[in-house]
């Protein structure tokens, strides 16, 4: 009941961003530069060849640009807003998360939902501009668009839980900077943000199947560009759903354990 009334918690990070114009200008500039560089890089790589790793040039550029746009979904500057779990643990303000009639896990989820909605607005604006400029290809059919949207939703849920898991580490370690750096690198590499996974050796692809990262971006983007046909999409969606379920259960367990750590670390 409280969660319905606490919807304003979802506005925390987006509103903080909107009230800081330099951050918006910075995000716009960075996104533009990233899209231009990534599109140029992949066009350059394909200038001497027609298709590599089962991808044409246009498919590869579309994949790479969409990966940049999608990575914007959770890339907000919580650090500047003193609103990371790590900062709350450090300053001891995490205590207030446990003093309100709203469970901390629900508050965290609401806040993350707001962030992802705000990031989605950025990604959609970027997508429309890139589509109009011919940088990315449109989906092959409405069915592909629909399955992509569903897969993207599941991918974002997986990403939410992976990031939550790293934040929950703070309750035990107080410092999660190293874990966060590893996560960012692993997420970008294993989800295919740096390059589609088919460019990597076989053992790497096999290893990544056992990790949740490829479920965040690689799967939905592969569906979008047609590298994963709709006939195979069901299995991929099931795998994403399985990751969501497994991570949901594990993070729920960790929230319960974390509550006992609040005083020791942040009291």
């Amino acid at each position, binding site marked *: 009941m*409280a969660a319905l*009334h*606490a*919807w*304003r*918690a979802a*506005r*925390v990070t987006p*509103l*903080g961003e909107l*009230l*800081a114009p330099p951050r918006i200008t910075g995000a716009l500039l960075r996104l533009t530069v990233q899209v231009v560089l990534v599109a140029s890089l992949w066009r350059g790589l394909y200038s001497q060849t027609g298709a590599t790793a089962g991808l044409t040039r246009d498919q590869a550029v579309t994949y790479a640009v969409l990966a940049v746009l999608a990575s914007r979904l959770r890339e907000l500057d919580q650090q*500047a*807003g*003193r*609103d990371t779990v790590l900062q709350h643990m450090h*300053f*001891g*303000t995490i*205590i*207030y998360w*446990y*003093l*309100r*009639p*709203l*469970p901390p896990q629900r*508050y965290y989820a609401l806040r993350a939902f707001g962030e992802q909605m705000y990031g989605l607005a950025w990604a959609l604006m970027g997508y429309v501009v890139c589509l109009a400029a011919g940088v990315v290809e449109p989906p092959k059919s409405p069915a592909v668009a629909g399955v992509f949207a569903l897969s993207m939703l599941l991918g974002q849920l997986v990403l939410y839980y992976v990031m939550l898991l790293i934040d929950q580490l703070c309750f035990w370690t107080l410092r999660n900077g190293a874990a966060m750096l590893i996560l960012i690198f692993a997420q970008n590499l294993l989800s295919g943000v740096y390059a589609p996974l088919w460019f990597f050796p076989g053992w790497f692809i096999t290893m990544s199947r056992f990790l949740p990262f490829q479920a965040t971006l690689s799967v939905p983007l592969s569906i979008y560009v047609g590298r994963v046909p709709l006939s195979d999409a069901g299995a991929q969606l099931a795998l994403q759903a399985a990751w969501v379920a497994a991570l949901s259960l594990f993070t729920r367990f960790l929230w319960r354990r974390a509550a006992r750590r*609040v*005083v*020791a670390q942040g*009291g």
Partner: protein
Amino acid sequence: MSASSIEVRGLSRTFHTTVRRPGFVGGLRSLVNPERVPKHAVSDVTFDVAPGELLALLGPNGAGKSTTIKILTGILRPTSGEARVAGVVPYEERERNARNIGAVFGQRTQLWWDLPVRESFSILRDIYEVPKAQHAARLREFDDILELSAFWDTRVRHLSLGQRVRCDLAAALLHDPPVVFLDEPTIGMDVVVKEQVREFLRHQVEERGRTVLLTTHDMTEVARLAERVVLINHGRLVLDGTLDEIRRRFGSTWQIRATLADAHAEVVALPGIALVRRDGPQVVFGPDGAEGPTVHQALKQVIERYEVTEVAMDEAELEDVMRAAYVQAGPPAEEA
């Protein structure tokens, strides 16, 4: 149904900490076979706070004040004993307890750093499900004393410490909690803001009937606000009483200097009052034993017994009294 807002019965909390052995080999041994030692943060503490009462929970650093408050706010579970806040066992029903309490923990703000203060208030209104009209009325009331409107459209990161703590106090009371926990709320604030905060707290206790449990090291604050004091040290309750009782027990440093109308009048000790010295008509009285009268009671006795032309009294500063109390109430035997 209990008549108390806060009931604490035999409350104890023991933490277990790992002791690092000295040296490289010791470090390795600690890694393989860590030595865990118990630390009794709170031991068998019992007290009550009545509705509409302001109680100061005092003690030196590490005495167990914050642990007690954390148990009462539901963040921490006691090892043994029981606590009830507004009829609710806080660590059993944390969310229900949260609706009954407000809390300010020193300089730790619960406001959102990047947002204007009013936005933080709105988020809290949402979380606590406070009707809009009530929220607006309460904000007006708080603004009258704390003068929040001058800066409530400012982002929290741009507020001064005094402004931020005033906003935090308002944030803690916006949902109209009957019980309020304040853990060193005025730490680091200037005297003007401190007085403003004290006035606000007095108003909340006297006019709104809120129960306040205050911890502070500022004895002026205690003297101006507290009706009753609970003193704990090394996790144990040392004293539960009024400031006068604390003064009587630990503050044996008052003096009454009087000039007698008759320089040759016979001067004798009065009940609980000793003659410290005499120089002609100038006499100095002091307390006789730990259970002696307060300085005001002694002054009354002296004036009634002798004809004096001039009288002055020096009372030990409350800070000195508390220092004496902390020193005298040393660690229990097993920890000494």
